[in-house]
């Protein structure tokens, strides 16, 4: 054993084994598979949107596929359909594993997941038919959001029950982040929907609420899910202890205190104090970022990683997280940068590079264990496609954005020239999105194959005891 025994955990004699926990959590495959489907849909929509940016005459006759519809649809499908759902599923699994309890509430989770998908479907159809609310990351019309919030209620309560069912002992940082995230999301979402859609506040106050919500969604909800995953998997796969508990504590509480305040950038039509507060907060948020990165980097340095290609996912996810923190400061201070491709690039780097890669790694780790099958197909290829895809996309948009900003600032360059000179970067980004689509499809394919093998194993073992299960590795206990 490489010194990775847990400290000060008093397990009761009846603590279930990891294999037992995994088979009890099999229902989590439902949200995971549906989130991967949404992932593929989102990346296809993103591809269409990306193509339309540099070739605007393509598919111009369809009102559904105009850029103004496909871009927000791709964004929302990713955040709500994939990231939030997969994040919740992985979070539930992490809670069970860390708490050493079998999954509580399998049926409510399944129902919640089904209705979550229904909500996202309604929401996306609403966007395409023009019933969008008009606010970034909140475009779902009332029907879709209400269903989404209700199903979140079910899933969130199940997660809380799972946390409560844990074995007594010290909590691990991932659990703090998951607990925090479970409370942050409904507050953010409900406040934003109330103040923007149900009982709208007046004028530019909507911008304040929308900015606060968007920042909360990224810096609090998605960051927490991503960090919970990284803090769990990096020490596990590196076979080392997390470097420092106090660093983790500082990171968590500084994120909690300052995380909600960032999100406003120079130039917005808001009073100067709100802009300054947002800009200053984004600088202070470098501290939790640095603390977490240092913590995990030193953990990786100390360990001897298992032979697993999965560490790559989490390592690059961590790098993306660090970069996003730094770029957020650029966004807040450098004039007009947030409004160029750079701003979009940072958003997508955060979503795909940090949250996406972390969740992909987690899903690739989880899926064989939940299904009890083994299948190495596509792990390598999907990882490379996703990583290179986001690298290409982010690099194209970030560099293109910086050049766009320089030309925007220079009043002598006509606007048409500013945009035409960035066309090459947009074309490169389309290539990046194409790679992401391929990567996503491969990930989905792998998980579906695992699920299929699991179903076949189940069917063949219950249908007939006499027939040997052919060509399948036995649904054995994960060690």
């Amino acid at each position, binding site marked *: *054993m*490489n010194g*990775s*025994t*847990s*400290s000060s955990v008093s397990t009761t004699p009846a603590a279930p084994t*990891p294999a037992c926990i995994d088979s009890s959590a099999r229902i989590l495959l439902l949200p995971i598979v549906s989130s991967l489907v949404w992932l593929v849909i989102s990346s296809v929509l993103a591809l269409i949107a990306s193509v339309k940016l540099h070739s605007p005459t393509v598919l111009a006759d369809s009102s559904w596929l105009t850029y103004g519809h496909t871009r927000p649809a791709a964004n929302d499908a990713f955040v709500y359909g994939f990231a939030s759902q997969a994040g919740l599923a992985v979070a539930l699994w992490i809670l069970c*594993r860390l708490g*050493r309890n079998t999954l509580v509430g399998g049926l409510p989770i399944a129902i919640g997941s089904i209705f979550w998908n229904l909500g996202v479907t309604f929401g996306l159809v609403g966007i395409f038919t023009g019933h969008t609310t008009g606010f970034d990351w909140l475009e779902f019309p009332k029907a879709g959001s209400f269903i989404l919030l209700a199903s979140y209620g079910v899933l969130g309560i199940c997660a809380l029950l799972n946390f409560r069912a844990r074995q007594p002992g*010290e909590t*691990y*940082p991932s659990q703090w982040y998951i607990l925090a995230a479970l409370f942050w999301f409904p507050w953010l979402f409900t406040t934003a929907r109330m103040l923007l859609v149900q009982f709208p506040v007046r004028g530019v106050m909507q911008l304040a609420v929308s900015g606060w919500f968007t920042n909360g969604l990224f810096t609090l909800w998605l960051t927490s899910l991503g960090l919970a995953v990284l*803090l*769990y*998997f990096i*020490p*596990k*796969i590196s*076979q080392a*202890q*997390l*470097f*420092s*508990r*106090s*660093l*983790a504590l*500082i990171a968590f509480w*500084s994120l909690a205190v300052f995380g909600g305040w960032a999100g406003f950038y*120079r*130039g917005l*039509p*808001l*009073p*100067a*104090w709100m*802009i*300054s*507060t947002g*800009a*200053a*907060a984004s*600088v*202070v948020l*470098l*501290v939790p970022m*640095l*603390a977490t990165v*240092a913590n995990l980097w030193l953990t990786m340095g100390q360990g001897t990683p*298992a*032979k*697993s*290609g999965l560490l790559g996912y989490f390592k690059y996810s961590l790098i993306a997280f660090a970069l996003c923190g730094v770029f957020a400061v650029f966004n807040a201070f450098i004039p007009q940068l947030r409004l160029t491709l750079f701003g979009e690039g940072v958003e997508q780097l955060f979503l795909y590079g940090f949250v996406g890669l972390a969740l992909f790694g987690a899903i690739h780790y989880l899926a*064989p*264990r939940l299904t009890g099958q*083994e*299948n*190495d197909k596509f*792990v390598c290829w999907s990882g490379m496609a996703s990583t290179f895809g986001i690298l290409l996309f982010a690099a194209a948009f970030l560099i293109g954005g910086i050049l766009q900003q320089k030309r925007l600032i220079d009043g002598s360059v006509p606007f048409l020239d500013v945009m035409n000179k960035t066309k090459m970067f947009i074309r490169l980004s389309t290539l990046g999105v194409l790679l992401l689509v391929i990567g996503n499809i491969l990930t989905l394919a792998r998980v579906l194959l695992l699920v299929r093998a699991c179903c076949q194993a189940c069917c063949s073992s219950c249908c007939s005891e006499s027939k040997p299960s052919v060509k399948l590795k036995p649904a054995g206990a994960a*060690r």
Partner: protein
Amino acid sequence: MKDVKSTSMTEAEPSVRSGATYLSMWVLGLLGVLTWWAFSYVDARGGHFNSMVYAPYGSTNQLASFIPKDETGSAFARGKMVYGTYCGNCHQANGMGAAGIAPPLAGSEWVLAEGPNRIIRIPYLGLTGPIKVSGVEYNMAMLAIAAGGGMTEQQVADVLTYIRMDWGNKVAAPLVTPEQVSKVLAEIKARTDPMTADELLKLPALVP
């Protein structure tokens, strides 16, 4: 790149090294420095939390100093407040007056006359008897609301400027100055009776 299961790695859950490290002290120090910087930044650039201050401006005092010393504009603003205090009750906030209470000022040919000579006298002496305003005859009594120090000359000048500019009223030179008001006051020093419409019509519109 095999999956984890087939190696001999244990599936133990991750754990944390307890105990503080020097690194944590450094990070706490950095947090302190950045928080202090953040507060001083907001202090310097935050416009003192005033909702009227937008970058690049620094304070409402600075904004006030930019207001052009345009007499007509500021007289309008002051006059509007005076109107609300003294005249609005009868002539109404929209200048339309009310039947049996006061004739309208909006569109009134008395207000829109070339100069304020006639209308300066009304608040100081009052008005009695029939008067035709926009083709409608009114016969009520207006009190000498400004007499005996009831309103300062500046206030009378401002409110007359205001009524000549709001509610769609447009004249070439709407500004009424306190000097004009003083000149008229000197003329009517001896009189205490209210004016009548006929008497007013005999006077020139412009202040001599």
